[in-house]
């Protein structure tokens, strides 16, 4: 009984610990004081107005969004065929290939960012959108593979064979049978990939400039010198985007986490 009570207390304290910092940021973005105050003193939307008036924030939001969208699209275009080959075909070095494609998950992003800076400098692409893009595609590819691979099951394969037996061309089978069946994996992979790109700092920081920067990198550079409620307002917007992405994910494919799927 005591153990149960203790478990309950620890669990709710940990939940509080997870939520508190986000609440503090959102709360203090409404403060009427010129410094960050939590609980907020007064209530104002001035800081959001200031943010909207500063074109550099809007530009950074634009860069981040474009980068995440293009990176996700390319990662899907490269990742889905790779997943199909890995799930369907036997070829030498398959295990090695899969670990190579998944390795950005455990590789320190700082190391990869530094490597891409040096490499893109040699190619004349240093601190360009392309340099950012290729790095983001590499680090989000594992999310696409991890979501799509488990859906390419033998049962799903049987339906593809049925479609081929009935005379469908490979492309027809892919678009009419395979794609609709793996769409929930595609959706969750795409959302995880988009968000991982959208929040990245450690990789992006090497290849951004003062003029072309993403929103997390801009926040990082700013927060190191000044902290004011504008930062809290910008951060709150990113928390809002995250919440929106999770709700879309939950409503469309469902967050099948911590529940028995059998």
């Amino acid at each position, binding site marked *: 009984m005591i*153990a149960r009570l203790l478990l309950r207390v*620890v*669990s709710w304290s*940990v*939940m509080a*610990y*997870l939520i508190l*910092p*986000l609440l*503090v*940021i959102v709360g203090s973005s409404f403060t009427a004081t010129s410094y960050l105050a*939590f609980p907020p003193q007064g209530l104002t939307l001035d800081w959001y107005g200031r943010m909207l008036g500063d074109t550099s924030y809007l530009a950074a939001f634009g860069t981040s969004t474009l980068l995440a969208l293009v990176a996700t699209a390319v990662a899907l275009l*490269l*990742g889905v*065929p790779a997943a*199909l*080959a890995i799930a369907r*075909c036997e*070829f030498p070095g398959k295990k090695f290939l899969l670990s*190579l494609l998944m390795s950005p998950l*455990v*590789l*320190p*992003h*700082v*190391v*990869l960012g*530094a*490597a*891409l*800076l*040096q*490499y893109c400098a040699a190619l004349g692409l240093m601190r360009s959108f392309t340099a950012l893009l290729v*790095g983001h*595609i590499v680090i989000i*590819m594992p999310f696409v593979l991890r979501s799509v691979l488990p859906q390419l099951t033998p049962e799903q394969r049987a339906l593809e064979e049925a479609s081929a037996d009935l005379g469908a061309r490979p492309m027809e089978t892919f678009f009419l049978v395979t794609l609709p069946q793996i769409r929930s994996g595609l959706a969750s992979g795409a959302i995880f990939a988009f*968000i991982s790109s*959208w*929040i*990245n*700092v*450690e990789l992006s920081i*090497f290849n951004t400039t003062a003029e072309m920067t993403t929103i*997390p990198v801009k926040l*990082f550079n700013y*927060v*190191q010198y000044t*902290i004011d409620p504008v*930062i809290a307002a910008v*951060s709150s917007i*990113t928390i809002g985007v*995250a919440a929106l*992405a*999770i709700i879309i994910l*939950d409503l469309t494919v469902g*967050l099948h*986490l*911590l*529940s*028995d799927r059998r």
Partner: protein
Amino acid sequence: MSAAMNRALPLLAAPVAFFAAFFAVPMIVVVSSSLMAGGVPSLGNYARVLFDQYHWDVLAATFRIAGLTTVACALLGYPLAYYLVRVVKSPALRRTCVILLVLPLFTSNIVRSFGWMVLLGRNGLVNDALVGVGILDRPMRFLGTELGIVIGLVYILLPFIVLAVGNALAAVDPALEDASSDLGATPFDTFRTVTFPLCLPGLMSGIVMVFTLAVSAYVTPALLSGGKITVFPMLIFQQYSTVFDVNYGGALSMTLLVMTLVLVGLAGWIGNAGASATGRKAQ
């Protein structure tokens, strides 16, 4: 074989070419420049890294912070995972908690660390609360201490452990636990001999994930250290962003990479050995 190869090749050509061009080759460039000094092949950069006490101090601090973070994440995350999977009965409440767990994961490290900069400041909510309740006489310094960095990193990495353990727990058939208690085991014995060993692979994968991310974290330590504490990724960043010494920076990168991979391999090996040992006992 060759028919399968013929089908695999067109699917793999583009992804493999992309990873070769923008992942494998850049990493090879780093390795080869780490082995060059003054235009000739040399191990001098590694000697510079390894024969300098300062680097060992920074490495020790990095691994100490990552180790403490991992232990704290496991100790806090395990009970929460158990509670959410086994105790919470309402699907709506569990769903809400899962959303609240994933929300921090979907938010930038910057934003989350920034929340702690506000909370842990001299006049922040944490100090106000600790002084108000009477635990502290006067505000304590968190920012610029290893404790502050650990608090921030645990916060950032905790969801990984909760999800890894929780998913492993959800896959354990409750009938096994029922059988154990029907045979007269106390709840604690059931947990110790049935539930815990079955979830060990999930716990280990969570631990490896948290440890690697903690070792390679740059943003959180940079913001919460207040310039007073250096961790290894900061040294790498300095070399590439301000000094632009790619030879020495490459050696630093490889040192971090190799040390991380060795420790991850070690953790996986211990986890496997532990899992098979408990597996044998259970039989």
